């Protein structure tokens, strides 16, 4: 091993450990203080951005160094299949209604999002990106490229949508009378994908199960309807 790649390994280990350490400090703090806005993911991102800016480290360098963490994303999504399996029996009789309500809700909100963006910004590529923000990142990016959106904006708004649902979702849903763990899981999985589901999985197993179910179905529904719906809306408006 030459000197250069040895340094790369050291840098990778340091960045990865620093990321895990920061995350765990905030996770510990949140557990102790029980404050919703103290989201370990959001705060870790803010602290790490500050660190990168302070030491003028590029994102590419940081991202390459923490690759082991990003590579765990795929197995993490697979692991969400476990709570889904555990609640498969209870969900069996509600399949048709769950599928129907997720499909209709997705169509309505994709349409509103596209039209709202075109009205406020008049930028079709951003309209495409923002209407795809509720699905898991790999699907959102793939659809963005297919429909002529802006991948950077899609990635950013996917994180935003995830954080909104993760941080504010359970309290907002409680406020409007959606108190059942199943309904909360379904709602947050549909609007805030894996990021929201991962966060609410700590509340209860039902949250995790319905969140996982919802994020899979929503991703599939969006992948099927958006290539037809979004171009139609764009041609209608322009």
């Amino acid at each position, binding site marked *: 091993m030459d000197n250069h790649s040895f340094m790369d390994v050291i840098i990778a280990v340091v960045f990865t450990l620093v990321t895990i350490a920061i995350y765990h400090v905030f996770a510990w703090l949140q557990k102790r203080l029980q404050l919703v806005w103290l989201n370990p993911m959001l705060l870790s991102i803010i602290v790490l951005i500050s660190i990168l800016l302070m030491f003028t480290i590029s994102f590419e360098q940081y991202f390459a160094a923490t690759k082991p*963490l990003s590579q765990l994303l795929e197995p993490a999504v*697979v692991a969400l299949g476990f709570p889904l399996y555990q609640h498969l029996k209870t969900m069996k009789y509600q399949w048709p209604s769950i599928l129907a309500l997720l499909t209709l809700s997705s169509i309505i909100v994709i349409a509103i999002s596209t039209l709202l963006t075109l009205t406020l910004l008049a930028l079709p590529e951003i309209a495409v990106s923002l209407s795809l923000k509720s699905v898991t990142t790999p699907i959102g990016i793939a659809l963005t490229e297919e429909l002529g959106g802006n991948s950077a904006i899609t990635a950013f708004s996917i994180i935003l949508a995830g954080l909104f649902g993760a941080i504010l979702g359970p309290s907002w849903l409680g406020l409007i009378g*959606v108190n059942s763990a199943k309904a909360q899981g379904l709602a947050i999985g549909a609007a805030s994908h894996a990021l929201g589901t991962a966060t609410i999985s700590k509340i209860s197993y039902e949250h995790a199960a319905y969140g996982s179910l919802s994020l899979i179905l929503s991703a599939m529904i969006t992948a099927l309807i958006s290539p037809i719906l979004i171009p139609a809306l764009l041609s209608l408006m322009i």
Partner: protein
Amino acid sequence: MKDAIYSIIAVVLCLSLGKLATALLGGFPASLYGMIMFTLLLHLQLLNANRIKKSIEWALQNMGVCFVPAGVGIINHFELIKNHGLTIVFIVFITTFLLMTLVGIWYQIIINKGQNNG
């Protein structure tokens, strides 16, 4: 420890099957196919759920850290955010809550109906 290794092998196996499905069928990312495969193998009892339970619960508790590096990527889009940031945040905020509210209330109504009938 043995159960943890069993869980890791199970997840890696499902992910590999997912990658194969993406390569052959396309359409969805490997992780989604893998998740469906994992659920299916557990449901068919080809995987032992009791051995997997503990390590998966630990993984679910800690998986948030995996999203952090991708999130830090916002740093590269400062220019876009400076120009249209507030409007984008506004639209994402409104439509995310709209979708959450729609699905949440709708399903809560279905649950309440079921309880009244039963």
